């Protein structure tokens, strides 16, 4: 492996420039020196040299992120198959993908669009305006992961990270009651709700701490197959006084932690995201002005980590003027060409739309979403 350049190490800029000036450019140049030798080279106090060396040693072991998360990941039990990098053929990947369990949304057309439901091992995002059904979808998934038909076996559990204070156990109980009365062998309402673990972080720092603690929690609760974050954007959108770069760092940190949790433990991660208004590009007066666009929040930094993105919105059916809710799969490696489907939210939870398949023209209005 190539030696790491020193400017990758979080040293103060004065220290770094002192090192570079004296000809030290990579970790290997410094790491084997004694503190006194380094002090002599740089003409500084041995204690300062010791500090520099300890920082370099600490961070030279890998990337910064790995070292920081080490306290948690040490207790990780990595499956034997993951011990070394294995090469799979595409066929094997498909076979594995098909054999993985999925979580049904209980809206069949939507499950079909995603090939059988919300997949494990990746991040799925639901976004939409307030009232579009994001929280309802999350609660529904927490319940349907526990269904006997969802192939996860008995005693499946879910983690619900509620950053907006919008998780209402009463609503979950209402949905659970419908499932336990209609589905044979389904758990009781109490069992359903006892297996949903709710976290309530309110700031980006507590959210990050929660995500970092998840591996430890998952070790104690091996039956967790779903992690919901409702919503990922609430704590990350507005609270940053020290600028956008800190925010992006934290987003990346959370996203990669979630991704690795999802992959390692074969867990489905579901996040909700808010929408943000993108002002139109200013046009010369003579030309028609563009309308403001609605886009999922958090920008490209987050989008890159999301494997499946589904937009929920409200609309009216063109002819009957019935209110319908529409789920549009915006981004998914498995989605087919038809990417929208109507769904409804009843007292029982998320269901497929009872009205006959909506007029296709209703669903075509997704152009606004395709420009990203």
């Amino acid at each position, binding site marked *: 492996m190539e030696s790491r350049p020193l400017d990758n190490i979080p040293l103060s800029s004065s220290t770094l420039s002192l090192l570079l000036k004296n000809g030290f450019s990579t970790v290997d140049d410094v790491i084997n020196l004694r503190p006194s030798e380094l002090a002599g080279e740089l003409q500084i106090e041995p204690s300062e040299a010791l500090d520099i060396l300890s920082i370099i040693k600490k961070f030279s072991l890998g990337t910064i992120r790995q070292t920081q998360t080490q306290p948690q990941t040490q207790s990780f039990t990595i499956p034997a198959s993951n011990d070394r990098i294995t090469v799979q053929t595409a066929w094997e990947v498909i076979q594995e993908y098909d054999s993985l369990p999925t979580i049904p949304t209980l809206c069949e057309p939507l499950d079909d669009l995603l090939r059988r439901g919300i997949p494990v091992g990746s991040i799925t995002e639901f976004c939409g305006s307030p009232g579009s059904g994001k929280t309802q979808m999350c609660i529904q998934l927490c319940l349907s992961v526990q269904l006997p038909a969802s192939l996860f076996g008995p005693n499946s559990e879910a983690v619900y990270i509620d950053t907006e204070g919008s998780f209402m156990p*009463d609503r979950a109980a209402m949905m659970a009651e419908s499932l336990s009365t209609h589905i044979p062998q389904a758990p009781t309402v109490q069992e359903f709700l006892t297996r949903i673990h709710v976290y309530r972080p309110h700031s980006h720092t507590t959210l990050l701490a929660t995500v970092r603690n998840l591996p430890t929690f998952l070790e104690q609760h091996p039956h967790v197959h779903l992690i919901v974050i409702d919503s990922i954007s609430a704590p990350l959108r507005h609270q940053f006084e020290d600028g956008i770069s800190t925010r992006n760092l934290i987003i990346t940190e959370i996203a990669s932690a979630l991704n690795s949790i999802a992959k390692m433990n074969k867990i489905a991660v579901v996040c909700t995201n808010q929408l943000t208004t993108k002002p139109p590009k200013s046009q010369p007066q003579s030309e028609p002005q563009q309308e403001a666009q609605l886009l999922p929040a958090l920008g490209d930094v987050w989008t890159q980590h999301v494997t499946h993105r589904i937009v929920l919105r409200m609309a009216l059916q063109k002819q009957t003027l019935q209110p319908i809710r529409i789920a549009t799969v915006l981004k998914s490696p498995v989605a087919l060409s038809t990417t929208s489907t109507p769904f409804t939210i009843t007292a029982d939870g998320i269901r497929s739309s009872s009205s006959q398949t909506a007029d296709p023209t209703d669903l075509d209005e997704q152009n606004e979403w395709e420009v990203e």
Partner: protein
Amino acid sequence: MSTKEITAPLPQTAFSFLNKLPRLKTGCPSIDTILSGGLPVCGINEICGESAVGKTQLCFQLCCNAQLPLECGGLNGYACYISTEGPPHTGRLQEIASYVANSQPFEVEWNLCDNILLSTAGTSAELLQIIREKLPVLLQIKEVKLIIIDSLTSLIRHEFDQASTIARTNLLSETLSEQHQICVVCVNQVTSIFDEPPDETKFLVRSLVEHYKDTQGQAFGHVYPTIEEFSRTKPSLGMAWAHLVTTRLFLTRTSHNVKIKIRTEIVEEEEGQITDIKKRKRTESTKTTVVEANSSVRRLSIVFSPHLRIASASFIVTTNGIEDYMP
């Protein structure tokens, strides 16, 4: 701040707090029915509507109800009312308080107005200061169970840096709500719609019509929802704020009118003398007269909420506060 030093919150199971969240009733039976008991003590509740539709009246009534014991639909605590549009109309508050006190099945031994803490904020900085510094101190000495901000909009509507004020207010009040189990209510104003009403509005109206049909319009003395009612205005502050609201209640005027009796106390004053409301006593010089007046029937609609369906109930504003509309 290093994230390592922050301890992650501990999880609890959903079952452990099922039915543990108290509800604050509004005191208007039809509204309480669609709210399934009242405003939830979770997240941020928003009441929005055009001026003179009854937002402040509803807030006053909530302030009074919050002091009632839990089994009567109250929160058994003090109410804190932060007004940003000048000092609140305390005379009106007294009227509503005395009605609420008299309509309880038990004797209310204290003056409901005594437990309503009023504060005014003139700028958003003052508001943030109240929430960040004064309220935590207040919470240590008094059992405050309801915080009303009437209205956030008037302070920040004209500010450039709306988003950060919104976010900070939200964060602070949400933390308070969570830590102390406080019901937080924010009042919002409306913005005119000049064009065709947006899809959300149409969706809302159609869903309200469905709710009307499902309940056959009878359960709540319901007035049929029409698009005209909703096509004039929409809630202010845009999407950034809307995402932070947990339950949004929208008040509108319907086209129905109703005759209500207004009880007024006419004080015979000496000419040129202004009587102070506090010094005024019920002496022989005070006469109660009843005047009939036209008032429009209003509607409270649930626009979105994590635990409630889109629904609406009609009500009227009388001397006693917010009451059911009985056609």
